[in-house]
């Protein structure tokens, strides 16, 4: 996989933070941004082996991994400060870390609700609050949140996940208003069904049903999300803010 070969995306030499970069979409984002010439630090929660593997998968690139639980605001603040002290700039934040705990609402445990909202929503608040002041003080920066098709269209057994991603869409629009005067853009990418470990369950459970609703009749690839992030992070998207970019092959739902 390689980044689109348009010269000068404006990303080379820049510095990016990607939350949850060990696997799936996050990993593709890390690789794409690194291929575009950015220094990338990604966070992971507890799977150090997967993180190390992701770092090793980008030889020659400036990619590193830090164990940070985005649910912990103090940890996010300490991480951002430490990273800024070393890199002296943060050009891009990609809030990608997310979890899924599908179940019918009646069968959903407190833990299912808490885990999804804490990671997918509070985690985004925590990391963005930690990083935004560094962007505000430099009067530039880009924030890209990874949302989901579930944020707008209902998915069975996904009340917790859908609520979390709907919140991210609202967060994205509200923060875009707040940070625009400081030259910072805030956008989101809303993936449809993508070939990752996280979506394996839904793909296996209802493959035909899912495919029949995708206009392009195929599951998306992680790098197709990464390319959308690359675009929103690049100088070609300097005039775009508060947008939710759907990358879902034309997913329809009743």
């Amino acid at each position, binding site marked *: 996989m390689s980044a689109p070969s348009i010269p000068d995306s404006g990303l080379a030499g820049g510095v990016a933070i990607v939350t949850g970069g060990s696997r799936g979409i996050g990993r593709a984002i890390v690789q794409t941004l690194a291929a575009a010439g950015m220094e990338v630090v990604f966070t992971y929660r507890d799977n150090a082996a997967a993180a190390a593997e992701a770092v090793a998968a980008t030889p020659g690139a400036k990619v590193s991994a830090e164990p940070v639980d985005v649910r912990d605001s103090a940890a996010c603040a300490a991480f951002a400060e430490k990273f800024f002290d070393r890199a002296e700039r943060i050009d891009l934040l990609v809030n990608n870390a997310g979890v899924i705990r599908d179940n019918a609402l009646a069968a959903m445990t407190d833990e299912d609700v808490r885990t999804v909202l804490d990671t997918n929503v509070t985690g985004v608040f925590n990391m963005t609050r930690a990083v935004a*002041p560094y962007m*505000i*003080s430099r009067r530039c920066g880009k924030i890209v949140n990874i949302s989901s098709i579930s944020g707008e269209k209902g998915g069975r057994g996904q009340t917790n996940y859908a609520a979390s991603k709907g919140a991210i869409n609202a967060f994205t629009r509200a923060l875009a208003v*707040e*940070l625009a*005067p*400081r030259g910072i853009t805030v956008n989101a990418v809303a993936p449809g069904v993508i070939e990752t470990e996280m979506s394996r369950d839904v793909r296996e459970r209802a493959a035909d049903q899912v495919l029949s609703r995708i206009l392009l009749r195929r599951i998306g690839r992680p790098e197709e999300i990464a390319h959308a992030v690359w675009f929103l992070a690049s100088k070609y998207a300097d005039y775009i803010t508060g947008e939710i970019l759907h990358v879902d092959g034309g997913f329809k739902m009743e």
Partner: protein
Amino acid sequence: MTNTSITKEEIMAIYPKVAETMADALGREVAEMKLDASLINDLGAESIDFLDIVFRLERGFKVKIPRGKLVEDARGSLSEAEFEKGGVVTDAGFERLKSFFDEVPAERFKNPFKVADIPRLFTTETFCKIVIRQQRAAAAATPA
């Protein structure tokens, strides 16, 4: 913690750096900064500028300034009910504000005073005092 014990000398010792930091945050020349300039009324600051100024002061002076505590500190020992009613500062709260913001010229206090207008009181000197208080708090917390 009171602020009356902060001397003019202490304030003037850090003023140049505070003024420079604030000028950077507000996109102004240092020469435009004045000790008693109201951030909002005289320097055109918005609420997000307060965040930026606090952030820059924290890094510049190596202190921690807890978020959301700027106005809370102004309330001091008064409870919320003693301090304000329906968004308007009580008489007791008004007296408290005048003593807490003793660096602010008296004519800027007008009773009734809205809670939402407290940020309008903040001056360059107010931020000098915040830094000094936090420096003292950090020194007190560090074992000798």
